[in-house]
């Protein structure tokens, strides 16, 4: 017979052995608990520590960058680095040794616990009435339920996962906003299909010099004549609350501007229909921003960079180093401080847009930088160092036939960047060590045009490798940027000379000397170019082999900004007012 409880019949030796095993289990278990707790602490410390990112090391690194010849400083960094590595690997070694010990403790615990359990085990005594067997019909239902659950899971998975047709659809054709396939003087490779961003709608003028920042409208409809003093074709005129040379940007029925003085930086939104100021937002309390703004030249001010809009948000950058995003209705989205720009004139490069990236040229005297921020969050997606001197040009985003490139004019290099990563795709020393670079580049049909006053205007076939096609050295722009088509290059100097060159050869087609100089950049709309001088007179001329002036339109107010050209309208920022011009 089987006894229900055998403890009282168990031998004294067995009972003693059971007690000993139980004690061993307790001891090893407690040892394991203590050891595990210590190892957990160690692991948490190791996991949380980032010794090479701490402030001391960062400060030391900055110091050695500023003073690369300081041998003592370098030795300090080495010693600190070694200390951090030693601490980390010692902690790792402790964890590993502790892991072995813990395994041993667990093994002893298991063995002793099982032994104790075995020695105290009671034999099974079957109940008088055996339990009921699960009927096969229930088991069949359970098996079917398992299959049903799988089918439901498949359905849920297919519904919850991203659409499957992403790969099925052919890649979108190359965008036509920034030129066609390479041709002419370039050495174009075979045209390959690739994913270009969707074209910007023609009701929009999303950034400085329009879509891609290339000074070319995506339509051919713009008013030809107007007269500011007489009010002819002036739809409205509204005062701008704060000064700044930044240009207007447009999305549907909203016009955005920035303005700033030493105390306040603001973004303005005007109603495109009436000119009413819909909202104004001050950029303030940006984390990390110093209380005092940097010193800048009065003519540059703090609102030289033109804002940008992607149709969901409007982005504004100021000479203080603050960049901010608002919804089109003025709700703040994010703001961040990019560091105080060390810039002799003040930061003036404008924002540029690529889908999913807000591009910021952030050169200063410490070196060249091109950053991409996440438009939704302001997070820095990449930060590409550029081996250039400080410059004030704005990035141009161009479709070069086989890919999208970000083109940046600077001294001494013209650089091309991958908009996805910031990586420098190619570069060319086109300026040497001369001049100061404010004009942005222009792109058309495989050629990039870049230069600055007192040096040259260069035409470069896109790389890699880039190839210098020609250089032109007369009446060069100092602030105004050139604009180009496959056949023509137009540029305007600070001294008041407009020059038309043959894009392929650099041959002068025509030259027009005018009374006022130019800060605004020419904009190409269809077969015309629009160019506003500092006095506010806009010259409209045909892109042709000979000078053919179509109109000369006074505004009645000084102008430094480049006008915006959404379809059928022009928005001009004068010294104190914003004008809407239309039919």
């Amino acid at each position, binding site marked *: 017979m089987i*006894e229900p409880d*055998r403890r009282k019949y168990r031998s004294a030796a067995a009972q003693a052995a059971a007690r000993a095993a139980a004690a061993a*289990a307790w001891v090893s*278990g407690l040892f394991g*608990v203590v050891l*595990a707790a210590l*190892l*957990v602490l*160690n*692991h*948490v410390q190791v996991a949380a520590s*980032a010794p*090479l990112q701490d402030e001391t090391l960062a400060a030391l690194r900055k110091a050695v960058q500023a003073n690369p010849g300081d041998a003592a400083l370098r030795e300090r960094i080495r010693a600190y680095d070694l200390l951090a590595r030693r601490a980390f690997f010692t902690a*790792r070694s402790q*964890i*590993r040794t*502790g*892991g072995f010990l*813990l395994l041993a*403790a*667990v093994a002893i615990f298991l063995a002793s*616990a*099982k032994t104790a*359990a075995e020695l105290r085990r009671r034999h*099974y005594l*079957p109940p008088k009435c*055996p339990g009921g*067997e*699960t009927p*096969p019909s229930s*088991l*069949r*239902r*359970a*098996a079917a*339920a*398992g*299959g049903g659950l*799988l*089918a439901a899971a*498949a*359905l849920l*998975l*297919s519904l919850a996962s991203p659409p*499957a047709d*992403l*790969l099925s659809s052919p890649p979108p054709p190359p965008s036509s906003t920034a030129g066609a396939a390479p041709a002419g003087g370039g050495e174009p490779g075979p045209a*390959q299909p*690739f994913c270009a*961003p*969707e074209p910007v709608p023609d009701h929009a003028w999303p950034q400085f010099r329009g879509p891609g920042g290339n000074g070319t409208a995506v339509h051919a409809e713009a008013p030809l004549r107007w007269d500011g003093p007489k009010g002819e074709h002036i739809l409205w005129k509204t005062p701008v609350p704060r000064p700044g040379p930044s240009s207007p940007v447009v999305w549907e029925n909203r016009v955005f501007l920035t303005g700033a003085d030493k105390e306040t930086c603001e973004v303005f939104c005007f109603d495109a229909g009436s000119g009413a100021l819909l909202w104004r937002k001050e950029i303030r309390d940006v984390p990390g921003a110093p209380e005092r703004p940097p010193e800048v030249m009065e003519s540059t001010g703090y609102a030289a960079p033109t804002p940008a809009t992607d149709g969901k948000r409007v982005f504004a950058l100021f000479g203080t180093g603050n960049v901010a995003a608002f919804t089109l209705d003025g709700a703040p989205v994010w703001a961040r401080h990019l560091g105080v720009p060390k810039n002799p004139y003040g930061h003036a490069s404008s924002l540029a847009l690529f*889908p*999913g990236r807000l591009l910021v040229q952030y050169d200063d005297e410490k070196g060249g930088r091109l950053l991409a921020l*996440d*438009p*939704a*969050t302001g997070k820095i997606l990449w930060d590409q160092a550029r081996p250039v001197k400080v410059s004030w040009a704005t990035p141009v985003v161009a479709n070069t036939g086989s890919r999208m490139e970000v083109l940046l004019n600077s001294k001494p290099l013209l650089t091309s960047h*991958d908009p*996805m*990563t910031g990586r420098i795709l190619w570069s060319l020393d086109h300026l040497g060590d001369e001049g100061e670079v404010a004009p942005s580049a222009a792109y058309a049909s495989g050629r990039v045009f870049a230069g600055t006053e007192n040096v040259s205007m260069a035409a470069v076939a896109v790389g890699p490798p880039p190839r210098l096609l020609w250089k032109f050295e007369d009446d060069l722009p100092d602030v105004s940027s050139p604009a180009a088509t496959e056949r023509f290059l137009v540029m305007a100097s600070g001294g008041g000379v407009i020059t038309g060159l043959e894009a392929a050869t650099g041959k002068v087609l025509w030259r027009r000397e005018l009374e006022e100089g130019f800060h605004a950049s020419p904009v190409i709309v269809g077969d015309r170019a629009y160019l506003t001088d500092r006095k506010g007179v806009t010259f409209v001329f045909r892109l042709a082999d000979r000078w053919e002036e179509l109109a000369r339109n006074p505004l009645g107010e000084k102008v430094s900004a480049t006008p915006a050209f959404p379809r059928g309208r022009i928005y001009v920022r004068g010294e104190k007012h914003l004008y809407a011009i239309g039919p």
Partner: protein
Amino acid sequence: MPLRRLLPAGLALLLPVLPAGAQQARFPQPEFESGYRLPEVTQPSPRSPAMELVDLGALAAALGLSAWFALRLRSRRAIFLLMTAALLYFGFWREGCVCAVGSIQNIALALFSPDYTVPISVIAVFLLPLLFALFFGRVFCAAVCPLGAAQDLVLLRPVRVPPLLARVLSILPPLYLGLAVLAAAAGADFLICRYDPFVGFFRLGAGLEMFLWGAALLLVGTVVGRPYCRFLCPYGVLLGWMSRLSRRHLTVTPTVCTVCRLCEDSCPFGALLRPTPGQPSEGRRAGVRRLALLLGLLPLLVAAGAGAGLLVHAPLSRLHATVRLAEQVLLERTGKLAETTLESRTFHESDRPVEDLLRRARDLRGRFRTGSALLGAFLGLTVGGALLRLSVRRRRTGYEPDRGACLSCGRCIPFCPVERNPGAVRTAG
């Protein structure tokens, strides 16, 4: 018992302390200015052919011993000792690789990829346990598989998983098997290795997730007998098929079952079948009608499974890194995704044409389409097969192991009072 309650706590504390090997290289290489050249990083050399033979010999010997212990010696103690030795050798010494469970993927990849040649040693590791299962039942699970051994050792207070729940969960191993074969055949991933719960313990180094996964299974395993073996192991599906056909198999009783019922609570894995005479039976006609109905339904189940597989082919194709990368790059390039990944940045820097990537991704998605349909059909067939099996009445006069589910661990053997010598009944106590 307090000691038994300590075990889960002890195992829980084991969780966070082992991922020492999971630490990534956090430090950039020092910049030497003295001209010192960092040594090139080399791969660890593969196991020598001689050692591979030793391993194969050890596997064959362990399988043979396991079969002998289970079928001839009928000794749970011997099986337990062999299991412990196998855990030490195949688990901690050989660090769990190559194991028979993971070898499924090598075989699948070799079958579907002309670029991959599977080593003979891996084929042997894959086939030997199956051959032994065909002759002697799942003796590999009993005492040779280190994954099973790790779970067996921690089983302290087994509770019975409700049979209906166990039946529902029984669909998981075929699903895991199908997914693993699909992923391996498409060159996407070795899922079994990626989600191996215990290899991190064997190597004392793995990602934290792997440790958490393994420790969770061990914790569950203190009360639920061998949860991975019963409700996940993909190789167990193949072993179960073989074991059902096995020539010989472990039995509870060495001769004739006296239906003393002493063994009825002995199996913690729910693999012991009761005698049938005591069970209610239905009419023969009803049984035949159901069988015919299920046979007719089988093609429909297979077709429905294939359809469900087609539904999920796109998400399944994302198991492949190329498909994920292509989708990521497309989303980035069209501005729908701002955040780049290390892979997409590397791709952008490689100057590879996007079109090439898309072509390859589309091709892979096509392969997953076919594979997913086949996977669904296989699962439909599995469910249909289970329904058919549950509809066939088998008579049992005594307690018998379920040949497909029995792990041949020998736990039931000491419970049987029947001696090998016919007619003799051992008195308990």
